């Protein structure tokens, strides 16, 4: 006898999250479903909660060679969602280049809706093969904050960009103001790190990384992200010129810095920290998005830098709630 129930179409690693504006206000989860090795957890909502919160987890805190995660997300009109993780997403080794561990994320954000994805960095182990594709479809007034970062591996075991291959692609598409309009690619940010790619130019992958331990990309778009985007652009423009000299005496410098307003003191402390901890960053306004790229000499310096920037400006915590920032807390 054939089963009267419709055949399940979900496959291992599949997951789906749907967020909708609740009648009483606030954002609620309409659907949350997942299959091994993906695991999604949402703490029971509180009254004060500003956005729906979901933890992206995997059994054992990592993905073994060949695992595939395929998550689809819909954020309905006017609602908001924060996605976080618990600890680095570990990528275990693959027996060969053909066995790819992958994560695919397909997100649709409707008008006036917002998504904040600030996860922990991906930590690819030695010999791992990883591919990540994240595609975001945004309505005209939708907002997105996306952080994508990757570390050199397990430092304690001497791993230093020792994986076989790591590919990460982020695409932002927009529907435009006219519904008849074809959707358009706004941003395609693609990073390809592999030994097979650096070998032909006679270098190991590590040699091409210039002693950077963590690499990150932050993509910001939409009305909710306008203040934080402006903040990064302003702070980038305010960075000291490389190769300039300060002709003031040490005493003068100290006296001047005491008289600075609090914000400028913070900025000057941060810039000192950037210099000491080898944080390099740049920000650019590209096709209606702000894109921040950063690298740091240690994983903690990278986390601390991005956390400081996001916390200081404050608009993400104000809109999504403090939980949205838990993975980037310095």
């Amino acid at each position, binding site marked *: 006898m054939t089963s009267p129930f419709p055949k399940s179409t979900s496959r291992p690693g599949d997951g789906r999250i749907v967020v909708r504006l609740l009648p009483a206000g606030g954002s609620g989860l309409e659907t949350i479903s997942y299959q091994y090795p993906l695991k999604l957890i949402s703490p029971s909502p509180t009254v004060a909660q500003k956005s729906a919160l979901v933890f992206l987890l995997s059994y054992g805190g990592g993905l073994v060679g060949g695992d595939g995660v395929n998550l689809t997300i819909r954020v309905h009109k006017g609602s908001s969602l924060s996605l976080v993780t618990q600890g680095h997403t570990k990528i275990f080794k693959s027996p060969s280049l053909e066995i790819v561990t992958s994560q695919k994320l397909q997100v649709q954000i409707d008008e006036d809706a917002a998504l904040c994805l600030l996860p922990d960095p991906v930590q690819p182990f030695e010999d791992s093969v990883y591919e990540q594709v994240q595609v975001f479809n945004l309505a005209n007034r939708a907002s997105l904050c996306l952080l994508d970062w990757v570390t050199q591996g397990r430092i304690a075991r001497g791993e230093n960009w020792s994986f076989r291959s790591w590919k990460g692609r982020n695409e932002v598409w927009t529907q435009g103001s006219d519904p008849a309009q074809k959707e358009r690619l706004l941003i395609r940010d693609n990073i390809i790190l592999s030994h097979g790619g650096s070998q032909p130019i006679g270098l190991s992958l590590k040699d091409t990384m210039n002693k950077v331990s963590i690499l990150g990309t932050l993509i910001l778009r939409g009305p909710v992200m306008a203040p934080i985007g402006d903040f990064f652009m302003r702070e980038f423009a305010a960075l000291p*010129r490389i190769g300039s000299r300060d002709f003031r005496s040490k005493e003068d410098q100290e006296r001047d810095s005491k008289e600075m307003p609090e914000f400028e003191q913070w900025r000057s402390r941060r810039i000192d920290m950037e210099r000491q901890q080898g944080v390099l960053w740049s920000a650019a306004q590209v096709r209606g998005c702000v894109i921040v*790229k950063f690298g740091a000499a240690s994983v903690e310096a990278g986390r601390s830098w991005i956390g400081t920037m996001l916390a200081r400006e404050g608009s993400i915590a104000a809109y999504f709630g403090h939980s949205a920032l838990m993975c980037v807390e310095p």
Partner: protein
Amino acid sequence: MTAQNEIQIQDEIAQLESRLQEAKARLSALGASNPAIPFRPAPSPSPSSSTHFLLLLSDSALPIGSFAFSSGLESFAAHNARASFGAFLPLSLSSYASTTLPFVLAAHRQPADLASLDDQLDAAVICTVGRRASVAQGRALLSIWERSFKTTILPSSATDALVLKDFSTLLRRESTKAGGEAPLVSAHLGPLFGAICAIVGLTLRQTAYVFMLSHVKALISAAVRANMFGPYQAQKLLASENVQDLINVVVEREWHTSVEEAGQSVPVMDLWVGRHELLYSRIFNS
């Protein structure tokens, strides 16, 4: 899978065409010594015409203004106290090939896709300084096409040449358009270079090689002006087997890379190029 097949077939066509041209050249050489065979003009674009354009497009005097850009070299030197050009060159070649070469190849294979390739490349260049460099040179190349090359083009390439005409009409319309939306075309160097090379009859391989060699020449010329080494050392480097090998390996590495898969293979390059704006004193625009 079909895209792969298509590329393979196109490679095969390019090979066959070059063999055909060779055979025809041999035939006409015979014809010169044997008056019984009537002389027929070579089909267009004739081998000599494509060689002529190969030399023009690889000339460092091609007025696209590449001398104004160092593609991150100046910033690299400012960020790294013991910076050497030898360390920068392979990184720069690898990065430029992985981000841009697939667009050059795709435009050569399918000149009709020029506008779409240009828009996709614009979405992928996520750095203000790099974008400025690419667009400035692309627009200059388009002007050279319109004002100088176009009139010499043989009728056989007329349909492909129309693509460039439509492209520049679109570019003019988009640049006068107000509003916040990104323009439909920006005129980046890579896809325009690929399309123009296809129209003037360069093979795919030649196009890729000239594109990468021009990058190396611009870098080396920037290094000479930044006082990293002298002109003789520069020619020695340019002539070296190392440079030839580097170009060949990166061309081979990206030969089958689709534009969707093009991306940054040396992420710190984005940081150096992006931070060029922060240099206290600058010789170059990138």
